[in-house]
């Protein structure tokens, strides 16, 4: 390597600035406080991932209850209201508390490593994003314990069912919890997205041009843009709904001149890009894994990146295909049908290119590759049924039937979740430093693949013979029983597979018997595989100078001029930032603010409505206090002097 050796041997000097107002937890913080105050993107990524896996289990239990209720006609495992709460919570949990944060976990962990950065651009903001996500998940699930229980409005919350006028439990608070939780989760996603965009644009290592970015990083960038463009729509819709419910405005109350149609437009102009927010990260992961296990570069890199961007762009122009049956008229319906068909092309391009990548390669079938192949085939089926739905006459029969349930589970489990599991099996050795048991991994894949198909393939047929979705039971004589039973059995198999997978992930952090991963166990191609596993807290001891797209591969197999170089280490070593309490405090303030808003109404003994904002104001004050303290915290930080090999 073309660098001089480094003479310093980490002398652990703490370099505290005396000017700072409040001391920050420093270098030697350990244990719980370390995890609560960390601003290290890798630890934040891990916490994101762990919390999301926890919610995956919660949402999975909800799904299994749903499936048990549908085992036979007129079952009474759940009452109809409980069932409706289950599918609402299942949908909201899986979208906002599982798939999105799992993607965020990978964005956090992998993206800075892939671009040669020591951290994201705003590390404390990253921490705030994590805590906002956890607070949001908490608020949503707190709803179980208050009046009306959790919301029973569907994850889409269609007006006017959300209107207090049509509440089926007096004083139902479920929708309020749902509104506030989604708002907080929106804050979490927006914070993370601004952070990632800034990081990718500004903090790439020298030589890492945009067209040398790994595809996963590209997808991070595109998804981040989608989030910051899509979330404002749902934020406004939720604010309006909150005002309708709390202060009696009439945005969606048709009896007072409001327009329920408006909610659907606002929701889906967020909701459709959201679909791509869920699937593009998985596509990015698969685009990383397939080249590695085929030992070839990605076929048509430019086209894959470009088609990702096109999908993101066009994702904003197809939202009304969720509303084909709402009576939009011939012209609007036709336009959205055509645009929806068009978006199939860039999606198909990706599949062609993945196959092209494998063509002429040396294909290994390790667990990540199995999940990637599972992703391609299952996503293909989901994509095909998606094309069917773009055709309005077909959609008129499929809409709100089990065919649609089959379709989006093929995209979101067969697609997104398989992709994310692929990511876990691929990158977890980098996080934990240990290889997972391949046999167990393949067993998990087999269980998930069989269980998944047994659950969701029959639903195509069920939808075609007329089973409507979101119905808590069905009558005798429809012929639904048998395939629902198959689906229920499949769901339990899938559940077992997912749980064993989670066990394997968690276990790899604690089981010292597992084989160490080494720097590059898969002979992978991108920059993060030049680092030791687990990655040191400073990531790169010296910033790499990038010479090629697949830098790790080029270093091993490429010509001499393509090998990466390293910038010399500064005299002061690696500057590391201190930890901080204030993101946590700010998030807790937000939590208080939300609780205060949720519970500010009371009926006094005379029957008058009394509004009491004390708790909300106190929560808001804590939040503002947290932000001010954050700003006054001072620079802080310490320096590390890593040895040459330690990275």
């Amino acid at each position, binding site marked *: 390597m073309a660098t001089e050796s480094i003479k310093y041997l980490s002398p652990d000097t703490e370099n505290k600035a005396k000017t700072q107002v409040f001391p920050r937890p420093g270098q030697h913080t350990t244990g719980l406080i370390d995890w609560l105050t960390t601003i290290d993107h890798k630890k934040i990524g891990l916490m994101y991932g762990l919390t999301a896996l926890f919610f995956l289990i919660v949402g999975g239990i909800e799904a299994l209850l749903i499936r048990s209720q549908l085992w036979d006609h007129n079952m009474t495992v759940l009452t109809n209201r409980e069932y409706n709460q289950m599918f609402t919570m299942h949908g909201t949990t899986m979208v906002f508390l599982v798939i999105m944060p799992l993607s965020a976990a990978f964005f956090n962990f992998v993206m800075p490593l892939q671009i040669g950065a020591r951290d994201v651009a705003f590390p404390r903001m990253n921490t705030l994003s994590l805590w906002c996500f956890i607070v949001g998940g908490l608020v949503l699930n707190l709803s179980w314990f208050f009046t009306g229980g959790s919301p029973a409005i569907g994850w889409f919350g269609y007006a006017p069912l959300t209107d207090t006028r049509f509440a089926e439990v007096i004083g139902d608070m479920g929708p309020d919890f749902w509104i506030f939780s989604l708002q907080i989760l929106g804050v979490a996603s927006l914070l993370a997205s601004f952070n990632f965009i800034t990081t990718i644009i500004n903090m790439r290592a020298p030589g890492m041009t945009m067209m040398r970015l790994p595809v996963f990083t590209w997808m991070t960038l595109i998804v981040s843009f989608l989030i910051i463009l899509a979330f404002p729509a749902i934020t406004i819709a939720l604010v309006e709904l909150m005002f309708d419910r709390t202060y009696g405005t009439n945005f969606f109350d048709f009896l007072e001149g409001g327009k329920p149609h408006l909610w659907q437009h606002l929701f889906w102009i967020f909701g459709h890009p959201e679909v791509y927010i869920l699937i593009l990260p998985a596509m990015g992961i698969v685009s990383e894994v397939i080249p590695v296990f085929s030992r070839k570069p990605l076929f048509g890199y430019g086209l894959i990146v470009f088609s990702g961007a096109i999908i993101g762009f066009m994702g904003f122009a197809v939202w009304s295909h969720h509303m084909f049956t709402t009576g939009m008229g011939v012209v609007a319906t036709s336009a959205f049908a055509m645009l929806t068909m068009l978006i199939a092309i860039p999606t198909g391009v990706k*599949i062609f290119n993945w196959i*092209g990548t494998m063509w002429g390669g040396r294909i290994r079938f390790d667990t990540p590759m199995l999940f990637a192949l599972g992703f391609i085939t299952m996503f293909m089926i989901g994509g095909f049924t998606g094309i069917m739905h773009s055709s309005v006459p077909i959609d008129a029969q499929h809409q709100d039937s089990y065919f649609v349930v089959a379709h989006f589970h093929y995209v979101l489990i067969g697609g997104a979740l398989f992709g994310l599991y692929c990511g876990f099996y691929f990158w977890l050795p980098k996080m934990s430093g240990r290889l997972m048991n391949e046999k167990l991994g393949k067993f998990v894949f087999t269980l998930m693949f069989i269980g998944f198909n047994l659950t969701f393939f029959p639903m195509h047929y069920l939808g075609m013979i007329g089973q409507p979705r*979101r119905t808590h039971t069905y009558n005798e004589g429809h012929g639904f029983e048998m395939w629902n039973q198959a689906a229920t059995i499949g769901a339990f198999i899938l559940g077992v597979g997912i749980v064993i997978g989670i066990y394997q992930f968690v276990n790899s952090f604690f089981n010292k018997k597992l084989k160490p991963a080494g720097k590059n166990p898969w002979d992978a191609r991108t920059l993060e595989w030049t680092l030791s596993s687990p990655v040191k807290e400073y990531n790169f001891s010296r910033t790499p100078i990038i010479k090629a797209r697949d830098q790790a591969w080029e270093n091993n197999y490429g010509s001499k001029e393509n090998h990466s170089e390293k910038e010399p280490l500064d005299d002061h070593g690696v500057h590391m930032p201190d930890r901080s309490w204030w993101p946590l405090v700010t998030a807790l303030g937000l939590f208080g603010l939300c609780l205060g808003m949720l519970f500010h109404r009371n009926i006094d003994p005379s029957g008058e409505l009394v509004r009491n904002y004390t708790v909300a104001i106190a929560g808001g004050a804590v939040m503002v206090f947290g932000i001010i303290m954050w700003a006054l915290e001072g620079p802080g930080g310490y320096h590390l002097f890593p040895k040459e090999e330690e990275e």
Partner: protein
Amino acid sequence: MTPIFRKFISIPHFIIGIFLILAGSCSRIDHKQSALDPKGLVSQNQYDVFMLSVWITIFLFCAVGGCLLYVLWRYRAKTAEEAKEVPPQSHGNSMVETGLIIASSIILVILAVPTLQGIVLLNRVPDANDTESLEKLGLDRSQIDGAITVNVTGKRFFWVFEYPQFGIVTANELVFPASKAVRINLRTEDVIHSFWVPKLAGKMDLMPGQENFMWFIADQSKIIGDADAATAMPSVHDGEMRAKVFAKQKFTDEFEPVGGLFYGQCAEYCGNSHAYMSFRALAQTDEDFDKWVKRFQNAQNPNLATKSYDPQSSYEKGSLVSFADPKLGSGSNREYRSIRQIAPGQSPQLNPGAWEKAHSDDYEIGKQLFASLQCVQCHAVNRTGLGAKGPNLTLYGLRTSLAAGWMRNDEESLSKWLKNSNDIKYGNLMWNGEGVDDRHPLRNLENDDEKVDQLIAYLLGQS
């Protein structure tokens, strides 16, 4: 397992057996709400486009999937050494990529054309003057000219069907002529619902504050097959449909289709009992439909309602009058039918031999209960009662189903329903609506078999 048992049930046998059972159950596609068994013009079009898309996607799946399998097999690393080889690092081929993009665009056009045609078809009834398109669709001008209009109003959790051309209102069972186009105007008074009869047409939502439109026309030849129209589609107006449905369908898996009976369902989540918000559509021959309309018009015509006995007038044989009957309680009336020509002054009291009781005692008491138990506040019987909160119960005894298509409309189910409707349909407005609480007389019916039987006699007597 015993060896003999093992001999017969080997694993391959087991797998083949399972496969056969599954294939067998899948082969049946004429289930109650099957979109795979279209019986109308619009649903047939939707089915055709669907099958086109199925063949296209099967082709694509085989082509792309086959390609994938080939690649996986051909380029798999066979040995550990091979897995360490470095294959040529090619970065792509723009000709191949462009070619595939163009090919996929062409395939989409194949689907786009019938899609656009289908959008127009499901949104617009063909113009009766446009002979060319009528011919293409295989329609006769009279089928469009004689179209009926139905205003559908969705409420949680039942359906109101108003026939503005005929001035009649019914609920939960839509009767329509099999040979004529049916225009459906969709409205809702509370949340969003969706009108879906899979065998006749795809769905359309009922949006608050907006009127949506859809239409369908049944294909009479598909409903009746080779049989005679009148027998294949039992008539509703004389209760034959109800009898046939009861005889043929036992609400089990063994479902036998009844000609002209279609099942529908609310397809947009609308609250607690969304699953229970189903309905039925009953196709009729033109004559049977006209007779049904006539019966309904007479029943809901206030001028034809039974009048009190008038001592000044004479009555034809078979006339109905309302006259006091102290046996039913003081001040109570009952309906009498004249057996022969009645001269003025021959009231049922003075000349009992000339009159017969039109209904049983139970019916008459049930009628009073219907008012005194406050049923009448929400349910209209023998009037249109468009604003009523509950389903219209005119000619209720002709209906095949109860509780918005959920149960069979017989004494047993009706008794369960009246005693505790919340048990059957949790959250329904009859049990939980405005002004209904524990003091409501309805809530006390549970332990009062006599009253329930009397109410049933009255309700099922509406035929």
